[in-house]
């Protein structure tokens, strides 16, 4: 695997990273049960918007993809699609132990065990499921990472595209979605 080189940002990128750190739009995609803690995080009690974060309707507009929990293979195909539709720079946050190592579904025939084989994950949040406090804390961490230019999973994905694609093909067979299967 090819490693992304050390921090050598131009001035423009440093300025851009400041803006990107203070305005993170998340992709509103409830991939798993961690999504149930997102409404409290977004709404009045914990109020994510004070960090400059907010939900966005489509992947094109979003900056961060929250993988809220386990991913079945069927979902993973859509997640990869969504991720590839997002505009650079983009970040991935994995929620809960299911994305880390399969968690409680380690022996399930339908869910994957390790997310970072398929998508570059910038940050993991431990727990099942992460509490809103943990989510807010990790968003603070993500902001710091972006400010320092450490969140460069998207570069990693570009440079190791073949490695990721091979992993995806191994587990999914085919990433292309045949939505006509249902008809």
């Amino acid at each position: 695997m090819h490693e992304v080189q050390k921090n050598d940002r131009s001035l423009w990128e440093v300025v851009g990273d400041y803006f990107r750190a203070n305005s993170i739009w998340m992709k509103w995609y409830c991939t798993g049960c961690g999504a149930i803690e997102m409404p409290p995080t977004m709404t009045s009690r914990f109020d994510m918007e004070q960090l400059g974060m907010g939900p966005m309707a489509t992947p094109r507009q979003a900056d961060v993809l929250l993988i809220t929990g386990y991913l079945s293979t069927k979902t993973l195909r859509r997640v990869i699609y969504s991720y590839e539709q997002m505009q650079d720079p983009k970040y991935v946050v994995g929620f809960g132990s299911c994305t880390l190592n399969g968690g409680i579904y380690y022996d399930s025939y339908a869910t994957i065990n390790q997310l970072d084989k398929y998508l570059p994950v910038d940050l993991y949040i431990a727990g099942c499921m992460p509490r809103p406090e943990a989510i807010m804390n990790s968003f603070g961490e993500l902001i710091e990472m972006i400010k320092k230019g450490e969140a460069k999973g998207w570069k990693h994905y570009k440079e190791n595209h073949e490695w990721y694609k091979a992993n995806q093909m191994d587990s999914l067979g085919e990433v292309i979605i045949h939505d006509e299967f249902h008809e």
Partner: protein
Amino acid sequence: MTLMNFIYGFLAVLGAFVFQTSLTGINRKVTARLQKRRGPKWYQQFIDIFKAFSKSSITHGWVYDFGAIMALGGIAATVIFIPVAGMQAFPGLDNIFVISYVLAVGMLGMAMSAAGSGNPWASIGVSRALTNMLAYDIPFMVVVFTLIYQHNTGSVSELASIQQGVGILGWNFFKLPLGGIVSVIALFGMLGKKPFDSFIAPAEIASGPMVEYGGKQLGMMFTLHELMTFIEVSLILNLFFGGGETLLIYMVKYAILYTFTNIVSGVMPRFKIDQAVTFFYKVPLGLAFIQGLLVIYLGWGY
């Protein structure tokens, strides 16, 4: 027409953008307070727009790119014609028809660009946006024609200055209360505030025309939206609330009017598009016609 006019025009666009964007940021905080939370920083909207510009972007074909540029250009050009507290870049060119026609260039560009992205949600959104426009424009135009008939002028700055000097009761909003109400309702439709925001409804059509925008084009759309808000609020302010004698008064009035729409829309759900059209053609259009008849036959508001 000298160089000064052009410099003023440029400054007007810049000032309108800065003012309206700060106001949007403050209003995000107001909405947050309405929802019992703290809300973002007041300059969050600037960060959002600049961030969008700092991202990479892709194209969905030249119609999409060209439409976005045309929309931004058209809207920015319209801002120049808006009289602000008696100041304007090109005196004498602020006729209401000029403004509505130049504005149409921007609207058309937006529709073109969104439809050019090829996403069906965007097409539905565009068709809803145009339907919505048709809905609020007709009652609003009836009221504007009444005004023009009454004062024998189509110049926005003149219409504004006629109302000045006699205090609050000189405003068209109080002289022609029915028309004033219609215009404020139409303002909700123009700004896309709830209950008339079905064309960008995220839960129904995934933010409609904006569905395929990302990166720089999204930044352009946000800038455009701020400028368009400035045009629409200014128009209503000049026509019905007496514009402003000085820049400060204008800005204060503007802020109050915009915050009012924002607070009201904070506790409103949205109409379906057909319900919005029915509503506009029932209540505001009726009021507008009654207002017109009262002005023409009974001499109201002189």
